């Protein structure tokens, strides 16, 4: 039995159109060359692009397609470029255009990073196309974007099962078994509510903004990695980044709050 298609369509055409239509939800309009690039509407993004013509290859945004819990979405950013003294990724900036303020965080790397990659958890207000801009020390600019859907939280709201009561308490995991120059992963977390300044308490008074505004990692006194979170970094800020130490030494970590409080950690990394 033959299927009746609209006159003039071959089966192959129909399949091609359907396949394209099914992929549509996850290909944003600007990626298709329709409409202005996402960064043009964001003031903070324009100076990062400057006069450069950004390339679209090499910057990966790792984000789920759908998240039920917009208050803590796992984000991964990585730039597929070597990190050498001559050419390295200087910074990656992440934006969520539909959040109350579009800037989510700025991340700064150095040749000591070994890999320009960061994992963290962010807050997303609603379904949107998020974007990232990477700047190389050579002046090259790379952009990327990704669509994500945020739904109403179902009944399974995640209650974090780690201890999050002591304010400014930090946790650090450093890599082991490294050889000189080999990138190793550092995992960090600090207990902090990351109060956005948009929430009201039970009485209706707006709780003032209180966030960790700077996270710094240095190795034997040389800066490795820096994060400048804005209020869209999720509560209890989690940062996972890389360091490629040339020799054994001390990793120094520092978290600074916008009210002046800070936390510090020092860890030894042994390099074979």
């Amino acid at each position: 039995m033959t299927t009746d298609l609209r006159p003039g369509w071959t089966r192959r055409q129909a399949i091609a159109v359907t396949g394209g239509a099914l992929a549509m939800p996850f290909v944003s309009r600007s990626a298709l060359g329709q409409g202005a690039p996402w960064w043009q509407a964001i003031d903070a993004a324009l100076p990062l692009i400057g006069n450069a013509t950004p390339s679209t290859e090499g910057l990966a945004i790792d984000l789920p397609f759908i998240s039920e819990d917009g208050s803590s979405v796992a984000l991964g950013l990585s730039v597929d470029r070597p990190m050498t003294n001559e050419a390295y990724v200087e910074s990656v900036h992440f934006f969520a255009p539909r959040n109350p303020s579009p800037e989510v965080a700025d991340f700064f790397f150095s040749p000591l990073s070994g890999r320009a990659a960061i994992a963290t958890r962010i807050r997303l207000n609603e379904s949107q196309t998020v974007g990232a801009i990477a700047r190389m020390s050579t002046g090259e600019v790379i952009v990327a974007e990704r669509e994500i859907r945020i739904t109403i939280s179902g009944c399974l709201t995640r209650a974090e099962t780690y201890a999050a009561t002591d304010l400014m308490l930090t946790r650090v995991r450093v890599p082991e078994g490294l050889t000189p120059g080999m990138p190793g992963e550092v995992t960090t977390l600090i207990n902090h509510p990351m109060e956005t300044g948009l929430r009201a308490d039970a009485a209706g008074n707006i709780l003032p903004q209180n966030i960790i505004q700077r996270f710094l990692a240095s190795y034997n006194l040389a800066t490795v990695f820096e994060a400048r979170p804005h209020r869209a970094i999720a509560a209890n800020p989690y940062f996972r980044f890389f360091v490629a130490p040339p020799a054994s030494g001390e990793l120094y970590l520092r978290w600074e709050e916008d009210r002046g409080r800070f936390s510090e950690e020092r860890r030894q990394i042994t390099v074979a």
Partner: protein
Amino acid sequence: MATDTVVLLALAIGILFGATGQLSGFCLMSSLRGWWGEGGDGRKVRTFALAAGVAVLASQILDVTTDVDLGRSIYAVPTFSIPLIAIGGALFGYGMIMANGCGARALVLLGRGNLRSFLVLLTLGIAAQITLTGLFAPGRVSLLTETGSTIATPTIHETLASWSIAPDLGRGLTVAVVASALIIFAFWHRAFRRSPGQVAAGLVIGLLIAAGWYATGHIGADEFDPVPLASLTFIAPIAASIQFVMLSTGTALTFGVAVVGGVILGGFAAAAATRSLHLEGFTNPRSMLRYIGGGALMGIGGALALGCSIGQGLTGLSTLSLASFIAVAGILAGSALGIRGPIRLASPTP
């Protein structure tokens, strides 16, 4: 990585559950029909009761002796809506009778080749997700806000502690009373005592509940990125599995989804080993309506009640949380309406 280990454990737990379910016919619906209906098999409800008793005992021992803290599970969240959970449970119970088995049973039967279960699972999963994050979600959330209450002591032993009974004593007493009531009820029945297969099934499934808590709560424990604390439940995970097979390139594999896959595999393996594989479907179109309706009611009711026959009946109960007792009461009430009384349904002839 902890998550990978947890997923593998989930698969193993699911396979064991599926195989046990296939070999023993473990099923709350059959249990209740056998218990309340005319001339049924009274053993199965004892199997379920044994599983529940073992689950409570083993899970509470785990809570006290390891870093697993059941007070952090969704069943022990202090804010919930008593009416929504009760009504959800009742909808689930009635839907279970309509569909001739709950979600977990449908997974096992699907493994055996029952295509009616395929239909039930699809409608259950989609209806659940519609209720959780789809068209019914705004309604559900406003109902929750209207009828919700915050209970400072969401579990039985915490409530006892607030009445000035020492916490360890309160917990010990509660576990002793609940677990022994269920286990004594089970073993009081002579035919059950003489069915080693049913006794074994009850034991295994009860222990699997505790295994789930151990996998997510202990193996999955991480200072930075803990796996969400959960054990066997089959409403949201069935919905999540449908989504996962479609969105796997952008969605992570979770404990629940791995369990669902395992149950189908375990049911299939056990059916294959006992030569019980048998493709079956519908001969009567009106029956399809009944099964679709049953699946939908289970999905909606289960989403409202935060769990199903296994999710609340075994896993939720093992946390001794008040919400779970309410949900189980609702499920039993809804099932009773399906088995006896003015709106009862006869066993289907599909």
